[in-house]
């Protein structure tokens, strides 16, 4: 499960990284870049810890750069494309709301290294969440156009939310958090029962392969390359 959590952060970092120098304005660009770096740092710490625990001589780069889609067990939600800014912010908001619950639980882990990584990530999550939820509210309660686009993003991404609750009990806390923001944003909670899952067992949407191809290209083409 540690590797799954690391994968969530790795994929989130790569997705958000695509927006660096492409975000709508400078402050947003810097916020997204900082958030991506936080996720990358968490992924690296968890990969390093997981490979140390398994003791097979693999390192963080082996896990990040040399595994295929079937080996990645990140949530389908985080691999979804950035789309328009509303799509990016809704995706991050749904994910940040989930990670808040995750880090709160893992900060109490018996494994001290995991507890330390989670305690730090929990504080970073507060900044991520304030940013993403703030934008969901501003866009939802903004112009007619931004409202429509944010509702469309929420309706589209909702199918990937069931998966957030596999093997945990975060659903009720997550639903409370999300419902409060959605209401303030004057949006409607989707009630489409169609849900896609499978990310945790390596069955992904078509988007992950392209993301990994771009991310891993250098290491695949020049094996063992280091900076």
């Amino acid at each position, binding site marked *: 499960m540690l590797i799954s959590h690391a994968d969530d952060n790795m994929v989130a970092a790569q997705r958000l990284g695509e927006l660096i120098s492409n975000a709508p304005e400078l402050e947003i660009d810097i916020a997204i870049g900082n958030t991506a770096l936080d*996720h990358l740092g968490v992924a690296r710490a968890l990969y390093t810890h997981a490979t140390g625990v398994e003791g097979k001589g693999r390192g963080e780069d082996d896990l990040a750069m040399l595994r295929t889609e079937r080996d990645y067990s990140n949530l389908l939600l985080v691999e979804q494309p950035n789309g328009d800014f509303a799509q990016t912010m809704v995706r991050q908001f749904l994910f940040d709301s989930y990670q808040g619950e995750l880090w709160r639980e893992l900060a109490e882990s018996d494994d001290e290294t995991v507890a330390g990584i989670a305690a730090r990530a929990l504080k970073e999550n507060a900044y991520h969440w304030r940013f993403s939820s703030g934008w969901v509210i501003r866009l939802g309660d903004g112009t007619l156009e931004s409202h429509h686009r944010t509702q469309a993003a929420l309706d589209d991404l909702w199918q990937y939310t069931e998966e957030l609750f596999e093997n945990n009990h975060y659903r009720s806390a997550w639903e409370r958090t999300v419902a409060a923001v959605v209401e303030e944003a004057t949006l409607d909670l989707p009630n489409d029962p169609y849900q896609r899952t499978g990310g945790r067992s390596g069955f992904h949407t078509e988007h992950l392969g392209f993301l990994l191809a771009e991310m891993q290209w250098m290491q695949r083409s020049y094996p063992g390359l280091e900076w």
Partner: protein
Amino acid sequence: MRTATYDATSIREVLNRVVDPEIPVLTIEDLGILRRVDIIDDRVRVSITPTYSGCPAMRQIEDDVRSALADEGINDVDVRMVHFPAWTTDWITEDGHRKLANFGIAPPTTEIEVVCPRCEASSPNMIARFGSTACKALMVCSSCGEPFDYFKEF
């Protein structure tokens, strides 16, 4: 090559020269990230706690620790990242707080208690909670009008 004689105290003195590459007025001691120095069978083990997950300065700090010790002829060095307990800005020393303010960065405190490091006026306005580095936010003084960095409470 010099043959060094050293103990944990003299090594800490050497490490006191290692500064944060982004905020060069703060040593790793001021930041509170230098957790332990142990000498185990002539091998020096320096334990450091990372600040932010996404702080790119950590790798640089690790290299700087090695090179500061290498300058003293100490080459058998192991730098370890200790994640628990997680770092907090509460570990920044009082000296560190003073140095930050003198450098023009508002030291960590709650957002409503921040004062302008130039004119000491209170109630500055937040411009961006994500600033020039992971640890800083950008604020602007409502009195003198100067923008400044605020070291986020963490």
